[in-house]
């Protein structure tokens, strides 16, 4: 049986002033109902582009889906007609964004904004939609939801706004919920509440969650499976426990080492030297090679492919050759 959401060999390119660059290079991911897939990586590695591709929200141009397939319940989304995609967006596939402070429209009340999402996908009138919106606000833990529904976004705190975003996203009981760094802009205490809420909602609605983050703490708390992305490619994929406990790829190891631990008496935080290379400068070899302590000649010449070497699938020549 195929998975609920299947991304297969997805390639997305962007026209830039340096010419066409490849933002996603044969990305394959899948997630099942009730499962949480964590997608991790540094800024610019293609996590958000992956999410936007699923939503059909890649700005075209300059973006272009150059190949591959995205299937929801077996239905191909790439090339599907715009009306059908609009019907899926906010319906079967919903998304929570990184910036709760700016993701809500400042000139409409939050109640209206949630009600709009409901009316777009369900055959209900405005009064019923508003009633549902208030129930949702209550569900996501907003006190006195009746009054809050009449508030404008600027009257709510960041955490409250993210709860509103979640209420809007789950308003039509999506099958897939994509959360793109949902807690990055929030206080740590609020982060934990939002994760709890996402977990509860998953339990209630049975949605698949794709959690995009660079926060390994969030991954350990939320994810069942993890895909590590680097420079537009998936470089390691396994169960969350495997990735966290036995990271294979040098980059994944680096990410794990970067997690500061309480009680560990380090004077310096570990870091991965260098930055993600600009996409237009990617050569023929492994994109991580320049930052990798285990680099050999082959790494600069040939792209490693994601394949099971030892513990779980990873794209690294060093692992493949057994020298790391």
């Amino acid at each position, binding site marked *: 049986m195929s998975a609920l959401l299947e991304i297969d060999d997805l390639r997305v390119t962007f026209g830039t002033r340096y010419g066409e660059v490849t933002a996603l290079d044969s990305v394959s991911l899948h997630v099942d109902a009730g499962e949480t897939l964590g997608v991790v990586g540094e800024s610019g590695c293609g996590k958000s582009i992956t999410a936007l591709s699923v*939503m059909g*929200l890649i700005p075209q141009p300059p973006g272009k889906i150059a190949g591959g397939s995205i299937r929801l319940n077996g239905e191909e989304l790439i090339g599907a007609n715009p009306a059908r995609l*609009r*019907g*899926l*967006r*906010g*319906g079967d596939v*919903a*998304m929570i*964004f990184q*910036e709760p402070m*700016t*993701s*809500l*429209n*400042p*000139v*409409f*009340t939050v109640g209206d904004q949630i009600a*709009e*999402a409901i009316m*777009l*996908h369900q055959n209900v009138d405005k009064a019923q939609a508003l009633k549902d919106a208030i129930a949702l606000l209550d569900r996501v833990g907003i006190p006195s939801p009746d009054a809050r529904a009449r508030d*404008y976004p*600027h009257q709510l705190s960041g955490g409250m706004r993210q709860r509103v*975003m979640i209420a*809007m996203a789950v308003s039509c009981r999506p099958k897939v919920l994509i959360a793109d760094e949902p807690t990055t802009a929030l206080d740590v205490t609020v982060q934990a509440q939002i994760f709890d809420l996402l977990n509860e909602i998953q339990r209630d609605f049975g949605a698949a969650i794709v959690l995009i983050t660079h926060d390994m703490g969030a991954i350990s708390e939320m994810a069942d499976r993890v895909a590590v992305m680097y420079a537009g490619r998936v470089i390691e994929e396994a169960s969350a426990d495997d990735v966290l406990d036995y990271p294979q790829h040098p980059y994944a190891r680096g990410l794990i080492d970067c997690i500061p631990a309480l009680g560990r008496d380090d004077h310096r935080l570990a870091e991965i030297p260098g930055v993600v290379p600009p996409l237009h400068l990617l050569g023929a070899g492994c994109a991580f090679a320049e930052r990798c302590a285990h680099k050999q000649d082959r790494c600069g010449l040939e792209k490693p492919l994601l394949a099971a070497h030892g513990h779980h699938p990873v794209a690294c020549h060093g692992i493949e050759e057994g020298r790391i």
Partner: protein
Amino acid sequence: MNTSYILRRLFYGLLLMLGVVVLNFLLIRMAPGDPAVVIAGEMGGATEEMLESIREEYGLNKPLLVQLGIYIGDIARFDLGESFFFNQPVTHLIGLRIGPTILLVVTAQLLSIVLGVFLGVIAARKPNGIMSAFVSVFATIGYAVPVFWTGIMLIILFASIVPIFPVEGMQSVRLRDANVFVKALDILHHLVLPAFTLAIIYLAQYARLSRASMLEVLGSDYIRTARAKGASEKSVLFKHALRNAALPILTVAGLQFGNLISGALLVETVFNWPGMGRLAFDSILRRDYPTIMGVLFFASFMVVIANILTDLSYRLADPRLRGR
């Protein structure tokens, strides 16, 4: 929006009007020349005795501050004095002409806002498209061309080449006895060219401004949210984006209202439109102080009202400004 704010705003408007009245009075009195001589000149020659009696009659021999006090007192009773030239109360003269001017100015304002914003929105939809280029070129030309030139060109075009619109006056003499409906249509028919002439500069400006404003808003996070919940492109443009993009347009529309009125003066002269512009023109040539001051008073009054309305509509459009 609260009543106390409206009252406060009206009070400021009143203060502003008082300032305008004082300034008008002093500026006109500072202009060289003796009004008594002018009035006497109209009567056909003057002796010193006659001048003295004219000064007595119009109160021109009293100290300046006393004259100012009397003038303010008169205005408070809606008495703008007697025209030196027309020998009629100024309020009566203005009363006859303010209707056509308001009709012209309001039509031009609405035409320029509605058409300009529409063009701007269409252009912003595809910032590199043909429509966008057209709007940019049209805006530059429209902004650069003086109204009287546009007016004269339109007169040439419609007087001789395609005579489908009347190029002069406000009503056809032959329809003097027609019913109200026919008369109204006739006035609208006469209104086309002057209104378009007056509107074109502002139309160009609003098109440019709303294009820029829309482009900025369309890049914001809440527009992505709107798309993510499955809103149609029309709803994204005209509901989610335009409401936010309207704020700078409103500001400019309010500020431009004064310019629009001075533009109306030129347009009325070109098209022989029987409004306040003609009256101002005639009274300036004849040094008819009470009439000039009356026209200035009403023009400022309209601008102050327009600004109050702008402020109020601003608060209607943007909830973040309410309750301040």
